[in-house]
């Protein structure tokens, strides 16, 4: 396996082992514009291992959500489509499955929840109508059985009065309740992987903590793997087993969570951590990362972070660094720095 095609071969921090449940290999996803086609996800590779939480971190627009939507085959095509790469799940390449087969995977085996619970639920159907339809699309269940399954999972995710909520419309629920409904709908068929795209960003802080705790508990109870997308390093610290850091459409560093926080190698990861407030570093100013993310149609030919990197070498400007995997750590950098 060449370094280009590898991803860090690690197990979950909680000791689970075995082959990865899902492998993304050299994924390229591009958006077509009148000026040509540009990669918004560029050469992304990672594994999701059984029973672990992998966090995909990065600032807005770095390609996290597009990566997740590529896995679910939910890209808005056109203009966005996968141009090359593989997403291997259960021996199949999801990028080449027929639409019909992809539908069988969705929700039944890989589920996804979204950022904004206010707009992500169908406003003219009740919670129960949608959950029942999802169940009966995948399973032979009577309406009564579907109702029972739904109420059970609604109760499990901590929704108060689940029997009544089953017949509620989304507008009758609070933001936190709606997110619980979305989680319940995503988990009702007991999927192997849950992809959560900024699940707590639209919620207020106290509810955020409850939802994260609930997600973590469900992940462990069900021996499920989770891909959590976030820009919030506090969320990462509280829930992740492993972290992949994305910058400008690429994964620049991947490591087990403790290692990433204690010994980040990539200057971008280091910059992110320096920009965090920290109780132990009293009265130290936060250090912002200078400059802006280059737009997709104006990517530098060398390292994409070079224009903002304090440690950039001549080589960083001319050559594009490849993604090197060393044990449990993956890195895309010519000049890694001690933290």
């Amino acid at each position: 396996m060449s370094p280009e095609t590898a991803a860090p071969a690690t197990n979950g921090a909680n000791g689970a082992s075995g082959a990865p449940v899902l492998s993304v290999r050299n994924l390229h996803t591009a958006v077509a514009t009148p000026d040509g086609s540009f990669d918004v996800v560029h050469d992304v590779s990672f594994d999701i291992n059984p029973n672990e939480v992998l966090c995909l971190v990065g600032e807005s627009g770095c390609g996290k959500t597009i990566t997740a939507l590529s896995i679910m085959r939910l890209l808005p095509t056109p203009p966005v489509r996968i141009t090359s790469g593989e997403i291997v799940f259960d021996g199949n390449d999801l990028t080449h499955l027929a639409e019909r087969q992809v539908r069988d995977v969705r929700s039944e085996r890989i589920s996804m929840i979204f950022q904004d619970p206010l707009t992500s639920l169908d406003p003219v159907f009740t919670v129960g109508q949608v959950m029942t339809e999802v169940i009966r699309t995948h399973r032979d269940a009577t309406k009564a059985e579907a109702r029972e399954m739904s109420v059970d999972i609604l109760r499990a995710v901590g929704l108060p009065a689940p029997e009544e909520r089953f017949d509620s419309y989304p507008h009758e629920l609070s933001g936190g309740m709606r997110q619980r409904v979305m989680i319940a709908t995503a988990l009702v068929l007991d999927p192997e992987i849950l992809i959560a795209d900024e699940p707590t960003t639209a919620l207020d802080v106290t509810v955020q903590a409850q939802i994260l705790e609930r997600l973590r508990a469900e992940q462990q109870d069900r021996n499920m793997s989770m891909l959590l997308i976030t820009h919030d390093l506090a969320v990462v610290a509280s829930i992740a087993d492993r972290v992949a850091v994305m910058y400008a459409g690429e994964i620049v560093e991947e490591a087990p969570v403790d290692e990433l926080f204690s010994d980040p190698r990539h200057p971008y990861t280091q910059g992110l951590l320096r920009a965090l407030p920290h109780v132990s570093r009293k009265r130290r100013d936060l250090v912002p990362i200078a400059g802006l993310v280059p737009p997709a149609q104006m990517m530098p030919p060398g390292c994409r972070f070079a224009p903002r990197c304090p440690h950039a070498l001549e080589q960083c400007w001319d050559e594009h660094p490849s993604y090197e995997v060393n044990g449990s750590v993956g890195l895309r950098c010519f000049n890694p720095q001690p933290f």
Partner: protein
Amino acid sequence: MKRIAARSIYTLIVLLLSSIAVFYAIRLSGGDAVSARLPASASFEEREEFRELLGLNDPVHEQYFRYMGRLLTFDLGKSLTNNADIFDMLTHHGKNSLILGAAAFGLVFAIGVPLGILAAVRRNSWADGSVMTFSVAGMAVPNFWLALLSVWLFASTLGWLPSAGCCSTKQLILPAVVLAMEGIALTVRMTRSAMLENLGQDFVRTLRAGGLSEASIVGKHVLRNAMVPIISLAGLRIGQIVGYALVVETIFGWPGLGQVLVNAVLRRDYPVAQFFSLVLITIVVLSNWLADVGYTVANPRLRKT
């Protein structure tokens, strides 16, 4: 419920005000009911005597209260022109109008909604282009002209359909289509834009992530969301059909309420004109009220409170 009650009171007020407007308007429009009834040779004294008999020399507000009093006891009176019982006219012509109106109303949705869905699902295709061109034409062409054109083409030239008359199915086709045309054109447009708007909503992605089929997502979830504005404006389509029925019934010689009203106004047949104006106004106002109720039923967000 409060919303529906408020709308009902508003509806009653509109009905009352329009009854006054109709009553005055027909008396202000010149001409005289007397000439409708008496032969042209009648003397001045005979005419004056007849006016007195009908109470037409009293102040208009007295006539109004007398008329409304009789109306409320279901004494509709008789036509001044042919002495026909107005209630009989209502049932006979009302039935014809109901057939024509219902056919047109059905066509508006049976044709408009599917074409709109087609245009939305196949956006920017040739199908979308032709549907939208048809829609623009349908809105731009005035229905009296469309009526004449369709008579010329389908009746005179091709001879497929009769040009006028009542009440066979074949005779119904042309007036119903002409009457429905503008409603179809508007419904196509509204359906298309409402479908497209809802297809772009976040909840569609959530449903796709749930593994639902495209048929269910588009045909059930998106359509149901898109129907909210369409249902709420369905009442307005009724109003439109009632208004256009005056023209279309007259052109196609369809003996409905519209034709009766046009003739009554031309002959200054006050009782008939007043009553049938009120009937049409009531239908329009009630259909608007229905639209409001329909909107509440179609949109769960308005159902409570």
